[in-house]
């Protein structure tokens, strides 16, 4: 190995060590949500003991104890501050996290393996909030999330509409002429189909776009690139070859911010969920009520819940303090078999 190559490997490793440390701090903040006091001497002793036993090679026990004393100190310091934890689906750098940063950059975002882990985490109190994608202008509705929404008692605390900029990125110093394969989520690959064809690149599916970026940074496969967010490029120290490579002009994803408690802050948008009896005209009667009250609907979606039964999602413009919203809700209650007011909130449109 040449010096340049060794240094490159060290750089990759350093950024990986930092990401792992960040992950450890996230876990510490999650642990705090479940325990009563920050100080736990027994647990600290246990950690240091285990670490000392695990020290190998060039890493001696004394050094490792010094490092870990600092890490524990830092994580206790973080635990003392009041952090808002918010779960998102995917690895760091996922579009949910991009949307979240646009909503509130102070919140701590925690990656979750799947959407159900986001819902679970909020319910269990690990997260104060969760952010989930509900629909995309190209890919339609996110079925899995809608399914979870129907069966949840969580509330909507906000919404973000995010333009999705898909970027092609490589390990630093990769020559664009050497790129052969491109890893990303199946949706991202489909949306960049023409770009990949034009440049003779092979599309390889990965479970998640940000996950692909992480894999590239850690496994360093040869002749490879990934399609992911700009944020992912920053997090995994990757070099962007081309921004905004998808084949479509308008690629927007809408995210909902969920919480275990109903939103009390001012809002100008509302979401409801209702089921109607299985007979003709019931959906129409609900829509009629909105029309008579002159309320603008912004989204309507449906999901089959049991044989022949449908549950509808409906978003509209207005506040739950508006007279016409209150009155229409009362009337809708009468014509539906179930009605759940999911929240009144603000929606942010990112440019």
């Amino acid at each position, binding site marked *: 190995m040449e010096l340049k190559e060794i240094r490159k490997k060290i750089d990759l490793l350093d950024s990986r060590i930092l990401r792992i440390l960040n992950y450890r701090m996230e876990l510490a903040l999650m642990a705090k949500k479940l325990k009563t006091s920050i100080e736990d001497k027994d647990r600290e002793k246990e950690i240091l003991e285990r670490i000392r036993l695990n020290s190998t090679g060039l890493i001696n026990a004394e050094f490792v104890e010094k490092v870990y004393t600092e890490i524990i100190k830092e994580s206790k310091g973080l635990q003392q501050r009041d952090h808002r934890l918010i779960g998102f689906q995917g690895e760091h750098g996922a579009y949910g996290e991009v949307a979240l940063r646009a909503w509130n950059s102070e919140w701590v975002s925690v990656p979750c393996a799947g959407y159900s882990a986001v819902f679970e985490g909020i319910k269990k109190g690990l997260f104060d909030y969760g952010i989930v994608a509900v629909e995309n202008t190209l890919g339609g509705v996110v079925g899995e999330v809608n399914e979870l929404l129907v069966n949840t008692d969580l509330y909507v605390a906000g919404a973000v509409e995010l333009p999705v900029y898909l970027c092609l990125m490589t390990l630093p110093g990769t020559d664009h*002429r050497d790129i052969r394969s491109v890893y990303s989520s199946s949706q991202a690959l489909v949306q960049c189909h023409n770009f990949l064809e034009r440049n003779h690149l092979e599309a390889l599916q990965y479970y998640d776009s940000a996950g692909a970026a992480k894999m590239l940074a850690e496994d360093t496969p040869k002749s490879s690139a990934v399609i992911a967010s700009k944020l992912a490029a920053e997090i995994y120290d990757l070099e962007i070859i081309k921004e905004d490579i998808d084949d479509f002009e308008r690629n927007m994803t809408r995210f909902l911010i969920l919480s275990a408690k109903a939103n009390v802050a001012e809002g100008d948008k509302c979401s409801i969920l209702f089921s109607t009896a299985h007979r003709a005209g019931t959906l129409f009667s609900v829509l009629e009520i909105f029309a008579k009250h002159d309320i603008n609907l912004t989204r309507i979606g449906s999901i089959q819940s049991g044989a022949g039964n449908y549950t509808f999602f409906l978003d509209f413009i207005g506040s739950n303090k508006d007279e016409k919203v209150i009155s229409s809700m009362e009337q809708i209650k009468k014509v539906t078999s179930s009605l759940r007011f999911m929240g009144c909130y603000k929606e942010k449109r990112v440019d």
Partner: protein
Amino acid sequence: MKNLKLTTIKVKNQARTLVKVKDITIGEGFTVIAGPCSIESEEQAIETAIRVKEAGADILRGGAFKPRTSPYAFQGLGIKGLQILEKAGKESGLPVVTEVLDPRDVSWVCEYVDILQVGTRNMQNFSLLKEVGKAGKPVLLKRGMFSTLSEWLSCAEYVLAEGNPNVILCERGIRTFESYTRNTLDLAIVPSIKEVSHLPVIVDPSHGTGRLSLVERMCLASIAAGADGVMVEVHRNPAEALCDGDQSLSPPMFMSMMKKVRKLQECMVEINALDRESSK
């Protein structure tokens, strides 16, 4: 010229090729392409872009892959340069042109720019010509520094034969025994092209003369010769340029040149009207 099927005029009053790039039509009026020899940094490119736009340029130029005489000279910023050029184009609202050197780069360069340039040293790089012919973007084909008119058209023929009709020819000077100027700008080629080909032709007086003091005059002469436009090198600070600083105009010089260009263009309208009258 009997092997030229697509580039030459076949019938009397044959329509001339118009190359459309965004809101600009090359072959109609007089198109001015300006910008730095090479993209050096984001600030340099964007500042130059905005200043040439203010002065009235139609298209922005900037090199990312540089064909340098010496392998030790600045080779350009590559992909990074393309990213900057694209951004400078967006910020200034100008379409952009850059040179492509390698057939493997053609599809990539297309992702960032509006016009592909094939440089003088690559005029007869046939695999590159075929590749840009397939690319679906207009091609600015510079004249090889040792090439005759028919050799040049033959190269344009390669691009057209691949199904790409949007070729802009660019005279950039040829090698002669004259050494005062970097090359000898062959302005007679402009009306010559007009006699035999329907393709638009522009002139590059920056490389054609290699001398700052001659650029403006040769630019005006190009208008009189009937060229469809010019391509000139402009650097925000020529003394600091990493490439071709000696022949690059400063933004104020470009601004003053542009005033004269537009003035002469107006005069040419009258002169061209006289032409039409006498040919009746």
